[in-house]
């Protein structure tokens, strides 16, 4: 953990702020009605995205769920194209067909977010299987919430991943909540990592709000997977500082709880770490201000981007070799 260069630490700091500001804009614009649908923010959970993705290459394949903005940005997607997608513009990653819950960016290996809880797990296992048969060092990574562990396909996928020894990293972002209810109402199994052992999968529960801890744990897990030691489950204990979705009034949270949020904030924790290492507060403030200005410029540009042409609504339902293409287009 200590061998990280200052450059790397600053990169983390930037990335954390990048996600934070990106989602701040999503929240702001959602309130004014500029964001269709119901975006879910990862505010407070950014360290998981940044710490894990720091150890991935472009060839590695990523899958995520409904809270995916951070993962997509940390995997290297262009913030402009990502923001355009979230607000449904033609310049968006998916040309406005996917939106916040269905972000895909093939150019970075972000192969898909899904709005169906646990729907991404088996897809990631399939990608890992493809990597395995191709004999590549590539791995697949899937981010999911603790709520997904109540789904049958979570267990089916763990079983298959262990059985086939797939190069797959399961990353559980355990924020202790699924929508408006706590984990204790969902399962008597407190730790998600406990599900791994019966399926022959190595696992660890870590502090997911410390980007350095996440980075180190992800690095060693990923090294193991690349070396052929099979799948790994990394449970990152974290905290969702925002509501479940933008607009969630969070009646289920007490004032006391809200007041302790700052202590958990992964950005604040990295800031304190950097200060302790000798960075000045001004230097860190300057990094933050730079990222902030960049993101504001990105969002200003995205808001001016063209909306998709309604005439293209039937594009992409099927591939070019689909024999019913012309007939299908007539529906519109």
């Amino acid at each position, binding site marked *: 953990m200590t061998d990280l260069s200052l450059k790397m630490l600053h990169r983390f700091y930037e990335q954390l702020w990048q996600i934070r500001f990106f989602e701040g804009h999503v929240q702001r614009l959602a309130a004014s009605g500029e964001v269709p649908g119901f975006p879910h923010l990862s505010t407070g959970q950014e360290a998981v995205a940044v710490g894990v993705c720091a150890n991935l290459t472009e060839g590695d394949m990523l899958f995520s769920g409904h809270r995916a903005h951070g993962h997509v940005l940390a995997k290297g997607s262009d913030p402009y194209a990502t923001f355009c997608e979230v607000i449904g513009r033609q310049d968006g990653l998916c040309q406005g067909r*996917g939106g916040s819950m269905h972000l895909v960016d093939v150019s970075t290996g972000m*192969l898909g977010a899904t709005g169906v809880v646990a729907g991404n797990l088996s897809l990631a*296992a399939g990608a890992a299987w*493809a990597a395995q048969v191709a004999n590549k060092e590539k791995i697949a990574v899937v981010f999911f919430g603790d709520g997904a562990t109540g789904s049958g396909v979570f267990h089916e996928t763990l079983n298959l991943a262990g059985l086939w020894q797939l190069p797959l990293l399961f990353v559980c972002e355990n924020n202790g909540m699924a929508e408006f209810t706590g984990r204790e109402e969902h399962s008597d199994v407190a730790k998600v990592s406990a599900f791994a052992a019966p399926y022959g999968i190595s696992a660890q529960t870590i502090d997911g709000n410390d980007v350095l801890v996440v980075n180190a744990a992800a690095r060693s897990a990923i090294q193991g997977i690349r070396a052929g030691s099979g799948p790994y489950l990394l449970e990152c204990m974290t905290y969702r500082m925002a509501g479940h979705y933008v607009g969630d009034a969070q009646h289920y949270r007490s004032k006391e709880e809200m007041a302790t949020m700052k202590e958990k904030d992964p950005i604040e924790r990295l800031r304190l770490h950097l200060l302790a290492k000798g960075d000045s507060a001004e230097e860190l403030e300057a990094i933050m201000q730079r990222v902030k200005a960049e993101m504001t410029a990105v969002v200003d540009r995205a808001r001016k981007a063209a909306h998709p042409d309604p005439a293209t609504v039937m594009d992409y339902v099927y591939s070019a070799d*689909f024999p019913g293409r012309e007939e299908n287009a007539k529906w519109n």
Partner: protein
Amino acid sequence: MELTFIDIIRRALDEEMDRDAAIYLLGEDVAAGGAFGVTKGLVDKHGTNRVKNTPISEAAITGMATGAALCGLRPVLEIMFIDFATLAMDCLVNQAAKYRYMSGGQLSVPMVVRTQVGAAGGAAAQHSQSLESWFIHVPGLIVVAPSSPVEAYGLLKSAIRLSDPVLFIEHKRLYAMKEDLPEGAGPLPIGQARVARAGKDVTIIVYSAMVRTALAAADNLAKEGISCEVIDLRTLVPLDIETLLKSVTKTRRVVIAHEAVEVGGVGAEIAARLGSLAFEELDAPIVRVGCPFAPIPFAPELEKALLPGSREIEKAVRELIA
């Protein structure tokens, strides 16, 4: 040489695997031959890497096939009975069907899901259903339902070569049917219906095992002087509406028959389409023949009582002509 439906599917899979190294088979017991022996022996030739047994995890294996298809493989997944596709619905409907669209064309899912429908021999309510209409309702899926061994050979080859997810529906009562595979047989067009028998009085629109039944009905009706045109849809998505319109314009009367429950079935969709596109051409209301609104029963006499057959088709045709 005569081959059964099962032998012919196996041959198509084998030849396609020879042709394209990206094709992988997976499913419950497929390396062991599968529940009906379709994949028997393929593991010996292509190896356990390409012919993979899976646990009984329909949701996860369908997801894995989809994920692998996103990453360059061309998986052919077997779902043993379409009744069990219920367990894979999230993946089929929410993921595989929509991936290309949701990603703005960045990714596609070249996957074939082979599955099997139909009532036979007391398989009863959970191993006999014909659930194809659920899937024609989902944009992004292709649905193929061959009516004979030779048809299945050509249609499966085409299905495997497409870039989008295909539900390939086999019928268990066709599995033992034998046909000669003609010299030089190859892929058959997806989305082109076939006039299985030409006629002038009534058009009978069918697919899968019902084609054979309709041909038998047409034989019987011919003896009474009624000339039936039997159209084998071959593919339910895409639907070859042109061929249907051509036939309807000629015969002016339509019976649509399928083994699936009549309510909300494929026939309902076709009847609505023909009703709006060819209203002026029709001399009589379109008639549907399908299963009554009940589960498939176990006892043979009950099963027989429920299933629509050539008698029901004949009755429908006679009433139309009268």
